[in-house]
């Protein structure tokens, strides 16, 4: 295994905030991802008492960018709070995009290229780009190039009404055609994750999220959104405080009507939202008077064949990140796992805990670790809170860093599964 270089300044997570996470098509449906990202960062600037000129670079993750705003990060760095001279890049590592943005920032600081970075992500799944059909686009391009009416007429003669039917993006693997849900369904079957276990996990997510919102720990991360008319939006709208196993049991499986177990209740919903964190070198944090929430100790990314178990990436990435951090699973005081599907979380946990799996897949003796349920997703996760693809990674980082500070936890772990068979893991540490 290649040596991990540990010179270069430590990178601190200093602050962060996020928009309310709201189910697609609801209260944030008229707000574009750019606007979500921009207002979230404005709030971060205020909360961190930041002077715009202190920021060196901005990275943002987005999975389904608008055709009109291909580089969302640049629109963020062009906020009037910043000088126009802050470079910005947008990144896409699917559901781990915000994590990729954070990693980019981390690396720039470690390299000494930057000392203050804003990294985050945003997604509006109410506002996905709908495309014209291939034939219709060809017609339009052809018409614009046509030199005379005869050519135009000929092109128009080939037009069929069905060409007007738009193509909307599906959450399917381009390489296999398998949708996310079908993958989760497959994993449940292969790993023997029962409907009951999935529903119980989802219920836990809602209950813990509800508790976290009630006691203010989640709410303090939320930047209220002030729409141009109507009441401010101050909280996530996917958390079901009163749901029960009985209620969940009534739902029909979505992806396999006869033998399936994955339902709307034990999967994360399509969501609109944005989140951002403020990263600084340890020295910069000190110089600017910020008390770091946590430091980034290590991270790792892994990928597997998408035709295998698509969402098993974390099972590969996590041991790598732990190794790079030089710690064992048992050193972890808190774990934040992205909950795409209950079956995906439970499958990965099964892998973490299996010595056989470790030996077969990783070639190591002994399981990666045993999950302590008291320290896993202590304020729920994406099933309850929702999952704006581009933003989730920053939300998890922020929540973990905040909770580590509250509890005085020494080590915390993030794991995120992503489309394309990828997994992301990061270890945070204090002090």
């Amino acid at each position, binding site marked *: 295994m290649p040596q991990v270089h540990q010179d270069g300044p430590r990178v601190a997570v200093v602050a962060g905030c996020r928009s309310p996470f709201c189910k697609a098509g609801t209260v944030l449906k008229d707000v574009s991802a750019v606007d979500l990202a921009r*207002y979230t960062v*404005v709030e971060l600037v205020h909360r961190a008492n930041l002077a715009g000129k202190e920021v060196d670079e901005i990275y943002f993750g987005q999975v389904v960018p608008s055709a009109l705003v291909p580089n969302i990060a640049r629109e963020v760095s062009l906020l009037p709070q910043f000088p126009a001279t802050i470079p910005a890049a947008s990144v896409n590592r699917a559901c781990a995009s915000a994590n990729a943005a954070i990693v980019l920032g981390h690396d720039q600081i470690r390299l000494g290229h930057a000392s203050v970075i804003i990294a985050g992500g945003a997604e509006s799944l109410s506002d996905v780009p709908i495309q014209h059909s291939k034939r219709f686009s060809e017609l339009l391009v052809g018409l614009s190039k046509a030199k005379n009416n005869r050519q135009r007429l000929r092109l128009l003669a080939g037009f069929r009404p069905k060409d007007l039917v738009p193509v909307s993006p599906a959450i399917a693997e381009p390489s296999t055609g398998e949708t996310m849900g079908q993958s989760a369904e497959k994993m449940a079957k292969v790993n023997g994750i029962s409907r009951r276990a999935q529903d119980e996990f989802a219920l836990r997510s809602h209950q813990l999220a509800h508790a976290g919102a009630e006691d203010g720990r989640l709410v303090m991360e939320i930047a209220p959104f002030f729409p141009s008319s109507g009441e401010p939006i101050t909280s996530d709208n996917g958390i079901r405080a009163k749901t029960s196993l009985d209620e969940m049991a009534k739902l029909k499986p979505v992806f396999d009507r006869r033998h399936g177990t994955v339902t709307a209740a034990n999967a994360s919903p399509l969501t609109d939202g944005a989140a951002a964190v403020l990263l600084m070198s340890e020295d910069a944090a000190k110089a600017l008077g910020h008390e770091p929430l946590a430091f980034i100790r290590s991270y790792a990314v892994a990928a597997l064949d998408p035709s295998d178990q698509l969402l098993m990436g974390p099972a590969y990435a996590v041991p790598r990140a732990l190794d790079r951090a030089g710690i064992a699973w048992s050193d972890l005081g808190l774990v934040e796992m992205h909950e795409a599907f209950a079956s995906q979380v439970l499958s990965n946990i099964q892998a973490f805990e299996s010595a056989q799996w470790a030996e077969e897949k990783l070639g190591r003796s002994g399981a990666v670790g045993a999950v302590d349920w008291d320290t896993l997703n202590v304020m729920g996760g994406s099933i309850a809170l929702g999952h704006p693809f581009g933003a989730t990674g920053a939300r998890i980082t922020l929540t973990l860093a905040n909770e580590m500070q509250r509890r005085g936890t020494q080590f915390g772990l993030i794991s995120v599964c992503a489309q394309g068979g990828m997994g992301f893991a990061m270890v945070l540490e204090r002090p």
Partner: protein
Amino acid sequence: MSAFTVRTEHGIGWLELDLPDEPVNKMTRGVREELGSWLDRLGADGDVRSIVLISRKPGSFIAGADIDEFLALRSRDEAHALVRSGQELVGRLGRLGKPVVAAIHGACLGGGLEAALACTYRIATDDAKTRIGLPEVQLGIIPAAGGCQRLPRLIGVRNALDMILAGKQLPARRAFRKGIVDEVVHPAILERVASETAERLAGGWRPKRRNIALAQLALDRNPLGRRVVYAAARKQLQKKTGGHYPAPAAALRAVEHGLKHGEDAGLDIEATLFAELAVGDVSRNLVRIFFATTALKKDWGIAGEPPAPKPVANIGVVGAGFMGAAIGGVAVSQGGVDVRLKDRDVASVGRGLAMARGVLRDRRKRGRISTYEYRRLEPLLSGSASWQGFRRADVVVEAVFEELAVKHAVLGELEQHVRDDCVIASNTSTIPIAQIAQVLSHPERMLGMHFFSPVEKMPLLEVIVTDKTAAWATVTAVAFGRELGKTVIVVRDEPGFWVNRILAPYLNEAGRLLEEGVTVEAIDRAMTRFGFPVGPVTLLDEVGLDVAQKASIVLFEAFGDRLKPTPGIERLIEDGRLGRKNGRGFYAYEQGKRRDVDQTAYEIIGAMPDSQVPREDVDARLVFAMLNEAARALDEHVIRTPRDGDIGAVFGIGFPAFRGGPLRYLSELGVRHAVETLEELAQKYGDRFAPCVRLTRMAAGDQSFYPRP
């Protein structure tokens, strides 16, 4: 040193203007003389086939006439001679027999535009600094170097009147659309395009003017249609000026006469009307106010050498109510500063942000900012129910409920969350700043910033300083106020400050007259006749009866019986009449629209509208109540100079500008005459009219507030 640099290149004569030692180019006597002789020379020079008139002064083509010259005019004849020579010079531009190109970058106003209009071709830069217009009427005069003749001939009567009568200034693109300029170019290529155009013009090419819209032509081209246009314009003018401002009507006459009887006759009447207006009181006072406003832009309101103002990039506003939100909106739209609104709860913050955005949206709707600028500026408005972000603030404006205890509680908390070099400003209209500052551990950073409602429209800002206010805080607040486009006067921390101090006796007197049975209409009409934009009773409704009463009580407590409020207003408030804001006041309101006087108001006051007070006394009581208090407050050094006081009254309460302000008006009436009037009023109506010490002293010494001309 000469203003023009002239060179000839490839048959083109370049007239380059850069008036030495001045920030902008003006048509001074010297400039006119030089231009005249250069035109003679270039006209006679056989090598010169065409001419370019261009400025070498950054951001200024020709900003207009030299206004100092107007004030120095002693007689109508002098004014007439001045304007004739101007007309002759501008006319020569068109009679050279050689084409002239005006290459316009920066302000092209008044005489500058009139010169450009006489040129063969006009090119303007697409730059924010380029403004094109004839603002003469705003100084009580008319464009008299052919502007009233050439503009309507170029762009049609309706468009021309639109520009001239309101003294409008247009950005280059709009001027192009109206047909005033022939071409709009990027500043980088202005010279090249001017040179190429001069070349083509020398070769005999002439621009084809674009057709003005057909409808316009239909009305403009026939005498009958024009008559309709004139009549409509006249009617509108009467409504707008109340007959107090003669210049727009004169300009209208000059345009009409010229189109009817030809350009020469038009120039004759331009000269005659200009001469009359330029030496008249209205223009004199408007010019003085213009100068006073200009002088105030350089006056930091402190004795001695002012320290440098601290840059203001971020502000906090505490209290996201009506005033706080409006201040936030104006700070973003005018000043481009980052505004953090804070209120008790998120819902209040949300309402405040919506109102503040409204200010911005309104500017977009009016075309003052583009959609892109709107999108850039909008994120500068944010808000919170917590103090987060206040450490960034360079200035915090407090606009919470007008109650000392509330303000103390808020400021005590606030000071824990701001930097030590943050200026804390209260937007109170009544509470003494020093009292508010008591809770601060750094009272030297506290002052008042008294904005007037509606903030986006009212041009005045009172900056109120206490004995403890530090100079750096004062200059920072003054500079910030100017950034918001306000005319700023620095006022001492006395009850009511300046504007409300002189307003109180005036409004009280209106209340008294009502109780004595004078009708609402009679009172309001008296003061609009005097030249106020609205009468005092309307003003009460607009400001809010409760707000006015609150101020009134503060002043009564400070100054006693002289400023005793009338009980009638109190009764109206008890009846739930707060004015326009709750749709019930002296007037009735329907869906926000004002209707007639609400007759039931008289009953509540306990008055029968059957007054015996003579009309002259109504006028005198209202006006002199204010004048007397103005002199008294000046004597108590509430304001630093009569100039500040007059500007405050004109911009803060709409004291008739053509009268120059209360102290100027007193001077013009003659202090002795004013004292006599006050003594009469005191005898007839009570001691409150007794002339103040300052006035009697001045009358005895035959003094005036301003040096006599």
